[in-house]
């Protein structure tokens, strides 16, 4: 418990916090409460009047935050990712976004081909191929706490900034000695961006890195729970995913951070709806002893409709438990469903139990 870092944490927190004092504003809270107590009757009348004229937007937001959580809370006011310039596509990873040319391949759950420039993720989704640099221009996205991320993060030794926040840049060899890579470490989110510009394409990938609280697909950068609130839509109280969504985004989270996101195309949406419709009513419960040590990993699916509230489905893909839910309707999670949910957003399979997934 008493290693260097823990000692440093204690001294840092006490150094930063011990001298903090509340302003007079906080003291006024008590005074206002006292006044409010004396004016209780007046407050009651005001509250009744407010109820008649309807809740304000802020009031609605507050109620939403009290009753729900970040899965469906309004994203108004959050820093939404800018749209990519013409001819480019946005890639989300670990709280950041970056732009790459539209014709680059963005690695899915299999090793990308080496014939054209591409983006790879070192998050387990491309196990076995992610750390070996391909002989073409490519971008590698890694978590700074992982093995590859640690190696590249150590190369980033020069001060830099991302959206005004401190970061580090550097240049050095990949494991094994070559090729040379340009590296950007974003300490705020733990993301490491590595560019192997073998073709010297000169595309400014590192310069395009930016923070986004909501990405292009509509996924929040961080969540604190996989439990969705009860849906507002009437039809979502009987159906897992009501028909007719106009936009469906899949967001994959590991330990609370957005790792990958993807907007489903029409055929993908229809296929997913079929699988959800066939999901078993019997829900397999959590296997005791496995979940407690696993990192939280799961997928949120956000379906927007032409009218009415969106519907959010959540599915933990680490077996804790094997079920998909919209907050009211819950069904069993089948292997085919997991594949459909995670195909475009990777799957670290942190428990190593793909072979044990329940099947239909």
């Amino acid at each position: 418990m008493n290693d260097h870092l823990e000692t440093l944490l204690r001294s840092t927190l006490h150094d930063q916090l011990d001298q903090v004092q509340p302003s007079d504003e906080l003291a006024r809270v008590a005074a206002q409460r006292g006044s409010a107590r004396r004016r209780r009757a007046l407050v009651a009348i005001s509250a009744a009047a407010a109820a008649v004229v309807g809740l304000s937007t802020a009031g609605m937001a507050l109620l939403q935050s009290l009753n729900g959580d970040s899965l469906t809370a309004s994203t108004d006011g959050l820093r939404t990712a800018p749209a990519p310039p013409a001819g480019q596509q946005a890639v989300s990873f670990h709280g950041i976004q970056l732009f790459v040319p539209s014709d680059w391949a963005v690695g899915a759950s299999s090793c990308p081909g080496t014939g054209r420039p591409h983006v790879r993720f070192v998050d387990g989704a491309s196990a076995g191929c992610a750390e070996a640099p391909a002989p073409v221009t490519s971008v590698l996205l890694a978590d700074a706490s992982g093995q590859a991320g640690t190696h590249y993060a150590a190369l980033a030794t020069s001060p830099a900034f991302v959206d005004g926040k401190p970061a580090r840049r550097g240049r050095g060899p990949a494991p094994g000695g070559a090729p040379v890579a340009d590296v950007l470490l974003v300490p705020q989110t733990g993301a490491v961006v590595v560019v192997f510009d073998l073709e010297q394409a000169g595309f400014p990938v590192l310069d395009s890195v930016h923070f986004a609280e909501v990405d292009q697909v509509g996924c929040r950068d961080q969540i604190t729970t996989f439990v969705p609130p009860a849906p507002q839509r009437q039809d979502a109280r009987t159906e897992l995913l009501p028909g007719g969504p106009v936009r469906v985004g899949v967001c994959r989270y590991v330990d609370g951070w957005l790792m990958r996101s993807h907007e489903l195309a029409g055929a993908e949406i229809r296929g997913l709806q079929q699988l959800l419709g066939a999901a078993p009513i019997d829900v397999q419960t959590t296997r005791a002893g496995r979940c407690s040590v696993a990192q939280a990993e799961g997928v949120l699916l956000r379906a927007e409709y032409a009218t009415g509230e969106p519907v959010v489905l959540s599915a933990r893909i680490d077996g804790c438990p094997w079920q998909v839910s919209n907050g009211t309707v819950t069904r069993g999670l089948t292997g085919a469903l997991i594949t459909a949910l995670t195909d475009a957003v990777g799957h670290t399979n942190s428990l190593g139990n793909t072979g044990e997934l329940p099947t239909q």
Partner: protein
Amino acid sequence: MVSVRRTDESFDDFVVRTGPALVRFGTGLTGDRAAGEDLAQEALTRCWSSWQRSSFPEHQDAYARRVMLRIFLRGRERTRPTATATDIADRTDDPAASVVERDLCWHALQGLSRAQRAVLVLRYYEDLPDERIADLLGCPTSTIRSHAARALAKLRTLDELRPHPGATR
């Protein structure tokens, strides 16, 4: 941190007694004094509602912290500390290496997820055992240990926070 409500204590007294600690706690969570005070103030406002209904729990300090954590972890607190080029330059020029190191550590804390940050603040500033942290956050103790382990692992990847000869604390 835990105290039983004093039957003769008014809400005003409660704010005066607990306010400074709550603001420090909020600052630890958010990484920003103003945001920390906003968080404490919002929590106190909600506590006031419970106080009025005479449903304010016995362990009032812990309850106030639990309310703060709930607000914080739901992501309603969106302020993130920003560092300017001048800030960094000032820090780098500081002759006391330990001060720079603590400053870097403070900023590195802001790079963790909200849940990880909350666990570290409760463990290393409030000196709470993991069982009490689990109670406050409403999750299993194993989850707390997992959050702490992953947070520490992430911080250990930062070169600036590794021990170096001559560092004093």
